[in-house]
């Protein structure tokens, strides 16, 4: 166990020495990783912010409930109190058909007699504001209300939110595909850099092998180098994201009055940054493992 750790510390130190001794190419590698990962990460940041925005709008979603023409006052009262007792309903607003008729007339500037309509064609209606847009809750609420006696029609006014959500979802999928492709590119690029390094240290590898080094001993420092590149790259990504965010928010602040409100992007939560870091390190590990073990065998 001790030897195991000792071996790894040694390999780690050797990797640090190697990175230091060819720092220009190390820095380039780290920048390449950082900037490449920054692309999907920025996209993800925007989508996250948009989703947060859309989840704020969700609370303003409404359900319109139109009642039968022949409904009795008792039934209206019953439906009203049933709605008020539902936990996912924030606000219940009743609009009698008379009021709706008046409103319509006002809007169209017509008189019922002029128009030749003697009878009010509009139904009584409840307008209900929800405190959730959880699809399951909304669906079951829709069904329950529809089954109430005297209810003619239920309309959910949240269609556009659904659309927005599915667009955001599609963008997320797109970003995921982009991220995967870029990750594959990075694996190739990191792998190639590590392969070139094994060639630089060809002499050392040869000698080490002659005096009894195992392949895993020889390839360990290269793997640490790859992990290091990943770590450095993720730090660059984090830095770039923060700078982009800061710049955007400053611009947004200037245009606050024009935009009619402050649109501020919020940074990704720490957990996402940890994910990016681990992801980048894993990329470095994978790339360097495969490329070093393959290249070392040919030396």
């Amino acid at each position, binding site marked *: 166990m001790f030897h195991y750790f000792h071996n790894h510390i*040694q390999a780690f130190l050797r990797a640090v020495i190697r990175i230091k001794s060819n720092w220009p190419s190390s820095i380039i590698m780290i920048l390449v990783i950082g900037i490449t990962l920054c692309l999907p990460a920025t996209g993800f940041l925007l989508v996250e912010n948009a989703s947060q925005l859309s989840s704020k709008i969700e609370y303003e979603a409404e359900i319109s409930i139109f009642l039968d023409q022949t409904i009795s006052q008792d039934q209206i009262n019953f439906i009203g109190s049933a709605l008020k007792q539902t936990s996912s309903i924030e606000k219940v607003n009743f609009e009698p058909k008379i009021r709706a008729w008046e409103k319509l007339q006002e809007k169209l500037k017509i008189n019922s007699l002029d128009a030749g309509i003697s009878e009010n064609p509009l139904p009584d209606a409840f307008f209900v504001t929800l405190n959730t847009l959880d699809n399951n809750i909304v669906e079951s609420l829709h069904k329950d209300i529809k089954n109430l006696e005297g209810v003619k029609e239920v309309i959910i006014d949240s269609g556009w939110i659904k659309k927005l959500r599915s667009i955001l979802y599609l963008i997320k999928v797109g970003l995921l595909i982009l991220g995967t492709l870029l990750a594959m590119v990075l694996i190739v690029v990191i792998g190639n850099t590590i392969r070139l390094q094994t060639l630089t240290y060809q002499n*050392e590898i040869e000698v*080490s092998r*002659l*005096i*009894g080094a195992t392949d895993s001993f020889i390839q360990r420092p290269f793997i640490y180098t790859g992990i290091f590149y990943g770590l450095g790259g993720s730090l660059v990504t984090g830095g770039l994201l923060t700078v982009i965010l800061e710049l955007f928010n400053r611009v947004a602040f200037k245009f606050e009055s024009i935009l009619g409100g402050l649109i501020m992007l919020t940074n990704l939560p720490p957990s996402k940054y940890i994910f990016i870091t681990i992801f980048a390190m894993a990329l470095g590990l994978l790339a360097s493992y495969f490329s070093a073990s393959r290249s070392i065998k040919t030396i």
Partner: protein
Amino acid sequence: MIKFNNVFKRYSGAKDILQNVSFEIHSGELVFVTGSSGAGKSTLLKLISAIEKPSSGDIIFENQNLSDLRGVDMPYLRRKFGMIFQDHKLLFDRNCFENVALPLAINDTTSIDISRRVRAALNKVGLLEKEKLMPITLSGGEQQRLAIARAIVSRPAILIADEPTANLDKKYADEIMNIFYSFQQVGVTVIISSHEAPKSPIRFKEFHLIHGELIKPQDVSLLS
């Protein structure tokens, strides 16, 4: 300990470099492999340390046929040998101390032990005060001694030295030979190649190669 049975060696198609070589080396012996340039001395040493494989014939080391050895076991076999290569194979991007420490790092030695043993090995070859220098700044003889320090630092049971005194004047050559003799005295098997056997009054075995053939079989030269 090391046994060659009718070993032939040829490199990719050309003529046989070693022909029908058979001998045995016992533990603790001092062996000189002699012969002129191109006779196959280095090749013979490379076969002993399994750096090269025989084209035919068997090489038995500690009752194991080396041709049965799996690739993954090779590093552990190599660690039993202290090797001094004809071209030294020093690492020129590491200082003397680090060069000598390399086998210990490979052997999993702990760091406290490493510095103690590296210094002891450097001291033995008279390079202790140059531990921080890079090998490129050393003279040819000093590089030779550095290579010896690297070979002895892990206290191997077998020392294999390919022309360790070439390019050295007689005084240094004698000094270096004395280092090898002192190791043999404490039980290490020592195998040295050189153009000719030493004139010093010491007991050794000589394998003389002419065009890849073992002319003088073992234990011919036993000076006392």
